[in-house]
């Protein structure tokens, strides 16, 4: 019970500081929005394309789609497919290398289309098909005319053009219904989980400064003059840092769920990740709080360490984009395991059972960090 009182006071003091309020409540959500807008292309869906390279017909298709969609070119189809999977782009069109030649030879070109299985993917597919028909249709018709009527391709193209202008333009009007203000394509999903990981750790770790402050203020010493034992005092401080980190995680979870309809997968799994990863942050904070003497030094180093680990662990740029040696380095960070656990839940539809290994790794991090921290702290505070 006493430990809870210490933890409660840690939370109370966190919320008393106005700058903390900004960093805990406003900043993470702002970043989720910004990242969603960046990778998710604002509120305009992005279509990835590969194999365009100067092919005139593919270029025409892209130009037609460009009016309504963002276009991103990929060098190879694997990268493009990954981008769909992670939600950077809404769909991918894979053009064959010889699209124009195939069309001119009168054969049906094979064009790959990959999207996530949601309704927006179907809408994009319809748009893509229409663009294909408009771009390739006249050429295919001209080829057919020239072959059947024995005229030159140039003459056939003129005939087709004339016939096309005679047909009244058909406009297809599309409407959407329902309140899809922020629900667009799950574009915030990736930003939300990576920012959650970043901020749970950051908010937990900067708590090391408060721990050092308590010591500098003489409050820790005074706590030891009460009936609370050193063990209770340390346990209470751990609980406090943990509470702060978990609060940060749950806050991001709930706000992004409600405001942006972010898909977090299995809710119990998500909560378990927040709990385990929050404990890693809290334990690291205890270690920093034991090792450093000055709260400002600890605060500064905490921010740098938290951002550095987040970058390494794939919270800023997804690890899948890393080189393979960097990917193995990423596995050293607890962030990697938290990010991957979320990927398991969200992208691979995993359950708690699927992320048990990840949770185990996170728990191991906590145990190691906490053991060292408590050993150091006991020396420091009872000196």
């Amino acid at each position, binding site marked *: 019970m006493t430990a809870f009182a210490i933890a409660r006071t840690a939370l109370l003091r966190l919320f008393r500081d106005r700058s903390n309020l900004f960093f805990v409540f406003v900043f993470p959500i702002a970043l989720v929005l910004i990242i969603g807008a960046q990778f998710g292309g604002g509120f305009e869906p992005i279509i990835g394309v590969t194999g365009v390279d100067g092919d005139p017909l593919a270029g025409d298709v892209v130009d037609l789609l460009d009016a309504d969609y963002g276009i991103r070119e990929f060098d190879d189809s694997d990268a493009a497919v990954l981008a769909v999977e992670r939600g950077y782009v809404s769909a991918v069109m894979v053009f064959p290398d010889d699209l124009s030649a195939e069309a001119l030879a009168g054969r049906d070109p094979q064009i790959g289309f990959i999207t996530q299985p949601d309704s927006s993917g179907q809408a994009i597919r319809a748009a893509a098909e229409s663009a294909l028909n408009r771009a390739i249709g006249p050429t295919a018709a001209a080829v057919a005319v020239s072959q059947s009527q024995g005229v030159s391709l140039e003459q056939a193209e003129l005939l087709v053009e004339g016939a096309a202008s005679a047909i009244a333009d058909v406009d297809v009007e599309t409407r959407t219904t329902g309140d899809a203000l922020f629900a667009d394509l799950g574009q915030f999903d990736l930003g939300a989980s990576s920012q959650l990981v970043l901020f749970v750790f950051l908010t937990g770790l900067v708590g090391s400064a408060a721990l050092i402050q*308590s010591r500098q203020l003489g409050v820790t010493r005074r706590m030891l003059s009460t*009936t609370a034992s050193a063990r209770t005092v340390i346990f209470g401080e751990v609980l406090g840092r943990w509470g702060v980190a978990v609060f940060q995680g749950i806050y991001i979870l709930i706000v992004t769920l409600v405001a942006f309809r972010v898909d977090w997968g299995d809710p119990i799994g998500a909560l378990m990740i927040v709990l385990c990863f929050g404990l890693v942050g809290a334990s690291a904070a205890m270690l920093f709080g034991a090792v450093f003497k000055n709260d400002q030094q600890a605060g500064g180093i905490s921010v740098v360490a938290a951002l550095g680990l987040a970058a390494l662990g794939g919270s800023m740029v997804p690890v899948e984009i890393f080189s393979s040696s960097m990917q193995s380095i990423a596995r050293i960070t607890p962030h990697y395991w938290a990010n991957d656990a979320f990927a398991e839940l969200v992208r691979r539809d995993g359950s708690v059972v699927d992320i048990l290994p990840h949770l185990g790794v996170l728990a191991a991090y906590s145990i190691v960090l906490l053991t060292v921290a408590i050993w150091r702290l006991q020396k420091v505070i009872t000196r």
Partner: protein
Amino acid sequence: MTNVLDVDGLKRSFDDLVAVGGVSFSIEPGEAYGLLGPNGAGKTTTISMVAGLLESDAGSVSVAGKLMTTKSSDAKRAIGLVPQDLAIYPDLTAAENLKFFGSLYGMRGASLNERIMTVLEMVGLSDRADDRSDEYSGGMKRRLNIAVGLLHEPQLLILDEPTVGVDPQSRNAILESVEGLSSRGMSVLYTTHYMEEAERLCDRVGIIDNGLLVAEGTRRSLVDSIGQDDTVHVTATGNLHHVAELLRAVEGVVTAAEAHGVVSVVVDRAAIRLPSILATFTEAGVSVVAVEVSEPNLEAVFLHLTGKALRD
């Protein structure tokens, strides 16, 4: 009746430095005991061991019959520590600070709230209970610091130099609070390097220097122990250290010491010796600004026993 505090042969060194070199004293229920000594005498180190914050190298402490160690919660329940430096959260209100420390003692709910109001009343902060303590004046912060120590109704209140760095008005308020507690039967252990505070508050005083108790007793008995010697304080400018040295050779002078522009001279009879004392200043080429003669007091006792002035 068992003593509220028994300190026996307490020792503690930091590396080569002997901070406390074997200190023994006792406090009876309801008694106010003062540890009087200059900076670095070992007061805080002694108190840290008494409060179970610091391991001793040797000796024992028992509070209300319970052995005090760094781990004994029974003995710790019996004391309330008011540390030398403020130990409160500046970003919390007085009430929140008290609630926090109260909960460390396992206090809860309505009885805790009631107790918080009582101690705030005792230190005169009731009307500022819900203000953040970093908005308080220095004296108010000190009083809150004291209130924390009173919260769980300890048998022994330990105050470590509670008036250091406080303006005279707040200082008086603090002394009055302590006097009030003491008159209501609270046992008090009070450290200070202000002779007047020890004289005003304490039933008995232990004089501590270099980690050792050099004398102990009531004010009366301590003063009597040095006889009827007077103390002459001479405020002057010049090489006072040298003057003090010369003075010790003057007839009738028991001892002399200099601190902060004042030379204190313990002398058998001030009225007779004053001319020769002042002549010594003139000989040394030191100009005298003011002279003050005082009756025997604890400061004279300290000077007498240690040859040092008790001033910061």
